[in-house]
């Protein structure tokens, strides 16, 4: 991959108690991946898969790992590696004694932004996350959804090039979720790389270019959404009017015909699709829609995780 912004190689992290020398819980077990500039990278996995640990290693929140990690070409222990990084943690606790506006000034300042730059950025940012009205209220008075919105704003206030979002829509209402999705896509358009960690698979499917599925500290699969949602071999058709003789029209083409009024589905190899359409047209049947069915991300994810639990790892 060219123009890599983040890379990890054979990353391992074992959590041990203070005086424990051996054993412990392996949170990361040989992770290797590379993320290019301007992509939205999804991180999926069940609880305890190691997703958050991976983010925390990259942000220097978790130390004592083995292997190599690089963010903008620098080791995570180098604070300069975080200059252009934004992070919205899962279940974050923002300083309650600050107002939303003061919070953005604090985190912007900690990232090295000048007060003049912050003056220009904060109001538009508050507007983008829908927090203009509540900007001068104390954070401790915010609802869960408002805290999530201001949390997202603090991750973006210093105009980062790489943003880690851990459950960004957690606690946000459907309208807010749509706004956040829109914002994420806007950020992608402006060249920002996003690392999205979410349990909401639909969200990941809608937003991410590439996805990594993890379990028990290992990568089970990595690829584009298309790679991870292969065709099921079933094609869904919608026709102009119900036809009781469909099994006769399509005799010898495909398998497992299931008819439901004007809709039917048929198991077809890719080369059989044209043949099926020709048969239907020859029989004078009007075709309204043809939809080859794919596995959705959830089905793909569950299939992978179940196979790992059963003992196998597919790559």
């Amino acid at each position, binding site marked *: 991959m060219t123009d890599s912004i983040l890379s990890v190689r054979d990353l391992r992290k074992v959590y041990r108690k203070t005086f424990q020398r051996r054993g412990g819980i392996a949170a990361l077990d040989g992770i290797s991946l590379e993320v290019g500039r301007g992509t939205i990278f999804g991180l999926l996995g069940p609880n305890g898969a190691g997703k958050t640990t991976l983010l925390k290693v990259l942000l220097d929140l978790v130390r004592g790992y083995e292997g190599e990690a690089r963010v903008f070409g620098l080791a995570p222990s180098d604070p300069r590696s975080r200059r252009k990084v934004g992070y919205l943690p899962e279940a974050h606790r923002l*300083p309650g004694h*600050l107002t939303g506006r003061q919070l953005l000034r604090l985190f912007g300042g900690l990232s090295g932004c000048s007060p003049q730059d912050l003056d220009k950025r904060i109001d538009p940012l508050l507007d983008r996350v829908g927090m203009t009205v509540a900007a001068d209220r104390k954070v401790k008075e915010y609802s869960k959804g408002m805290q999530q919105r201001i949390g997202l704003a603090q991750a973006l206030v210093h105009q980062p090039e790489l943003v880690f979002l851990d459950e960004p829509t957690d606690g946000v209402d459907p309208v807010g979720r749509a706004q956040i999705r829109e914002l994420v896509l806007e950020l992608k358009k402006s060249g920002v790389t996003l690392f999205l960690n979410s349990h909401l698979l639909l969200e990941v499917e809608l937003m991410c270019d590439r996805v990594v599925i993890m379990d028990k500290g290992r990568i089970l699969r990595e690829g584009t959404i298309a790679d991870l949602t292969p065709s099921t071999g079933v094609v869904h058709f919608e026709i102009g009017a119900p036809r009781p003789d469909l099994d006769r029209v399509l005799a010898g083409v495909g398998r497992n015909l299931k008819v439901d009024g004007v809709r039917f589905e048929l198991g077809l190899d890719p080369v059989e699709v044209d043949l099926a359409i020709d048969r239907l047209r020859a029989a004078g049947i009007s075709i309204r829609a043809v939809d080859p069915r794919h596995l959705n991300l959830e089905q793909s994810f569950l299939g992978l995780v179940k196979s790992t639990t059963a003992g196998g790892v597919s790559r």
Partner: protein
Amino acid sequence: MNRYVLRALFEDAFRQVLDDKVFRLLVVLAIVLILPTFLIGIRPEGISLLFGWKVYTYAEVSGAFGQAAAQSPDIQVRFIQGLQDGIVGGLAGTVGLLFCIAATAFFVPRMLEKGAADTLFSRPVGRFTLLLARYCAGVLFVAVLSFLLVLGMHIGFRLVSGWSDPAFLWSALTLTYVFALVHSVSVAVAVFTRSSIAAILTTLLFFVFTGCVHQGWISLEHTRAVQAEDIARGESEVEGAKGFKLLKDTLDAFHWTLPKTTDSDFIVAGLRKSLTESEPALTDSNGLLSVVGSPDGFEREDASSSDLGSNPAVWIARDAAGQEKARIELSRRSRRDGDVIDAKGKPKLRAPGSYSLDDSKLLEKDPSTRDKPVRGSRPGADGLPFAWVRWRTQGETTDVNRARGFTGLDEHLYVVDASFQPHFGTEDDRDRALDRFLDQLRVERKSATNLNAQDWYMRTFGWSSPWRHNAFVSIGTSLLFAAVLLLLARWRLSRIDF
């Protein structure tokens, strides 16, 4: 780290402090303590309420509390200094600091909580920098309160009472300094345990423990100094009992390791002394005593000699016609004038009380003595205990009231001999005149034998003292302790996985 980061950290620390409910409560309490200094004037003539609406003399105030009339030339100064010491040194320095320890102990644990730490430590700022920022927030908390209290009281006393010791302002700095030392313990414990409760309890215990250690060590040092003086005088050859060597060594070890929090009081006291006390008018050239100035109404006669052993100093008060109405003499002689011989074959040092006893016996036999002489003790200035004998004697025309006081300073016996003519005034007037005279006396040597541990340490401790009692060493070792704790906290913090 650029200046924007520093500014952000400072603003956050300030806002965190301002948002703290305990801080706001303490601000209100500080104002409650400051307000009376603007409403009550402690004037030379008495205590004035609400800008002169009602004025009480010091005698009236003393009487209201069932005390003898308190009179001294510098009663206003003493009164104000007493209030300042009581409120800032006593109340703010103990109860106030305990409040502050409790109020600031959660700063670090809260920062290290999951969720809060993730957001903060993912910024391009080192963990230790962020920890130091929280440490400074705690120190700022106390600094603001201390300066508010001290400056407010200072301005109040200056404006309404007309006097306030400028060195009092140092108290704000020393309160902050003491808290900075103690707060390092709180921060270190908080990083290791991530618990506010553990930080509060440990720090409170530490604060009390270190105070006890330091006071104990001062007593130990005083005992050592007394023994050294005994040896120097040839009264003792061994340096005390060896039985408690382990205890003494342990106390020494604790003292040199732990911060010397109580030294701050001595630093302020030393500064105040250096700013408020002037050069003495008379210093006994071969002795240990000096006299700051003449008491009110008295003037020194023949100030050519400064050797009280050969020429007693004399102060005389005269009436409008120039007639003598009171006289006070101060002289010195040796305390080794008894019959009891010590192991070295020298006469033993006599206690001041034995002189007053001998005097009273002689006076009883003297036909000119009117009533039975009365013996008593009277605390003099600078921690000097005086043994007194008072009597009335037949004068040329009328009876004269006499008083003679004895105090010992090492080898020396100082004798104050006073005589008052009847037209000088009442017994209260005579007492007041003696008190004013004793107030002028200062011990010029740091003699451990004649001083209690606190007064001795007060004199011994200073910026140019030997290293054991040196203020720079005290501050240096205390700050070193705080620095070591912060470095320990840094070490632990660098190993935490959030």
